Every structure is written in structure tokens, then in C-alpha cells.
């Protein structure tokens, strides 16, 4: 599997047009339905290669796009999500500098 190829599991004659937001492999239990004591084995089953991680990011990106950005009449929600996301991101990367502004004496 080189760059720009479809996933190995994708078969056009069975799956039809390619949906970039969809995982074409064998589906596991969704994360929201995993019990706490199963989380370890669930994480152990995950594919942790860089290409699989990139694929997961790409699917997340496209499902967000399809759900919030690409419909015909979108509201302002995706822009607020971008705003909140970027605020959080920059807060996290600047957290080391922000720490110096703490006012506490006793915690």
C-alpha cells in the first residue's frame, strides 16, 4: 500500500463508491460501548502502525467534514468548533508559559 492508494480492504465491486469517512475493515465494538474492564483488550486490538493512525485521522477529518462542513445549509457550528479547537490547542501548547501567571499561595 503506497501513498494515495485506497485501503486494502476496499473493494469497489462490493462497496461501491469510496467513502473517505468509512472504515472498510472488520468493525470492532464502538468505543462508546466498551466496558471499562474491556478497555485494555480493546486498545490491544488496535492497529498502531503510522499508516493506520493516519487513516484514522483521515476518517475523523472526513466524517467531521461530511457531518458539519459539507451539507447544503450549514450553520455556524463548524466554525465555532474550529474556534474552540484552536483555542484549546493554543492553550495547551502555551501552557508552560501560562503556568507562571498562577495566583495561588495555598492549594
Amino acid at each position, binding site marked *: 500500500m503506497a501513498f494515495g*492508494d*485506497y485501503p486494502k480492504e*476496499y*473493494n*469497489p*465491486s*462490493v*462497496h*461501491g*463508491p469510496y*467513502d473517505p469517512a468509512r472504515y472498510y475493515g472488520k468493525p470492532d465494538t464502538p468505543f*462508546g460501548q466498551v466496558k471499562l474492564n474491556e478497555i485494555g483488550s480493546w486498545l490491544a486490538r488496535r492497529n498502531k502502525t503510522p499508516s493506520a493512525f493516519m487513516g484514522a485521522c483521515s476518517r475523523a477529518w472526513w466524517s467531521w467534514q*461530511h*457531518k*458539519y462542513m*459539507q*451539507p*447544503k*445549509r*450549514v*450553520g*455556524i*457550528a*463548524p466554525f*465555532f*468548533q474550529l*474556534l*474552540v479547537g484552536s*483555542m484549546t490547542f493554543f492553550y495547551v501548547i502555551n501552557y508552560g508559559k*501560562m*503556568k507562571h*501567571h*498562577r*495566583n*495561588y499561595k495555598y*492549594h
Partner: protein
Amino acid sequence: MLSRVALRSVAARQSASTALVARGSASGARDEQNFPRPVRGEPGKVRLGFVPEEWFQFFHAKTGVTGPYTLGVGLATYLCSKEIFVMEHEYYSGLSLILMVYIAAKKLGPNIAAWLDKEVDNIETSWNEGRTNTIKGLEQAIKDEKTAQWRAEGQELLMEAKKENVLLQLEAAYRERLMQVYTEVKRRLDYQLEKTNVERRMAQKNMVDWIVLNVTKAITPDQEKQTLDRCIADLSALAAKH
């Protein structure tokens, strides 16, 4: 010519490679049940402007309606009180910015949304315009074709009428000629009759003339005298009777 051949070979190579990628391992029937064709849906629902509705639904079964809010507020309280979330000067400018964004979204949002929806509709209409125009044109063509067929049927009627008219004209000419033949024959017969009559009259007249001439030539003076005497005797006999 050569350039066209070169282009064709390039096109063939491209299509072959893309077909290979798209086909993959081509086997099995299309599974419409589990892999339906993706459709463009409505935008996802959010609460508080950006939090997905699914987040609240996930909590709803376990914690009830207030669960996610409680989690959020509790987490915020914890982060603030332990000063993990540091409120430095940027935090307060952020608060004022959020206030301004909120007011702007509430004040200008509906108008901008209406305008954008109108633009979306305009773009969609413009993209569909060619197709709708083509459909309209084709429908018009079908209507025109039907009118033309109707007119052609009218032409057939007209041709029938013309044929009938020609037949009537032929009939009239035929009758006219019959009449002509009749009058000609009658004229000739009348001529023959008149001729015969004239000949007979002339012959009779000549015969009468000839007979009268011969009779008057045959009467002698003696006979004339005898007749006169006989007449006078008859007259005197008649006079004696009355």
C-alpha cells in the same frame, strides 16, 4: 497526425492505470445493504453552539439530561479552583471576545444565514439551469412535433378534399361533353329533318304546278263553254226552286 497518435497512447496509458487502481481486487457482488451509496445529509445538531448532540445522547442513558452539564460545570470548577486552568489577562479579553461573538451571532446571524441560503439556492439553480433548460427545450420539441403531426393529418384531409374536387371536376367535364354530343347530334338530325321537309315541299309544289299547268292546258274552249252553260242551267234551276 503523429501528435494525435502520441496523445492517444498517453490517454490509453492513463486510463489503464486509473482503471487498475479503481478496480482493486474486483470480485463479489455489490453490497447495497451494508454499504449504501453515501448521500449528502443535513448538518449535525449541536448544543451550546459547538458541542455535538451525540455527546449528550451518550450521557443521557447513564446520567439523565443534566449529566453532561454537571460533568462540564464540575470539571470547570475543579480546573479553576486548583488553578490548572490559569486565568491570566488573556482569559478576560477572551471573555469579552466571546461576548462580542455571541452578540454578533445573535444579531447578524439570521440575516447572514438567509442571505447565504439564498446564494446556495442561486448556485444550485444555476448548476441545474442547463439541464432544466434542455428538458424544457425537449418538451417544447415534443409538443411542436405533435402539432406538426396534427397538421400533417390535416394535410391528408386536404388531399382527400382535393381529390374529391378533381373527381367532381372530371364529372362536370364528362357531363358537359355529353351535353355537347347531345346538342351536336340533335343539330344534325334537325338539319336532316329540315332538309327532307324542304325537299318534299319543293317536290310537292313543283308537282302541283305541273299538274295545274297541264290541266289548264288540257281544257279546251268547247269544254269551257259547256261548263259555263251547265253552270248557268244549274243556277237557273236553283233560282226556280226558291
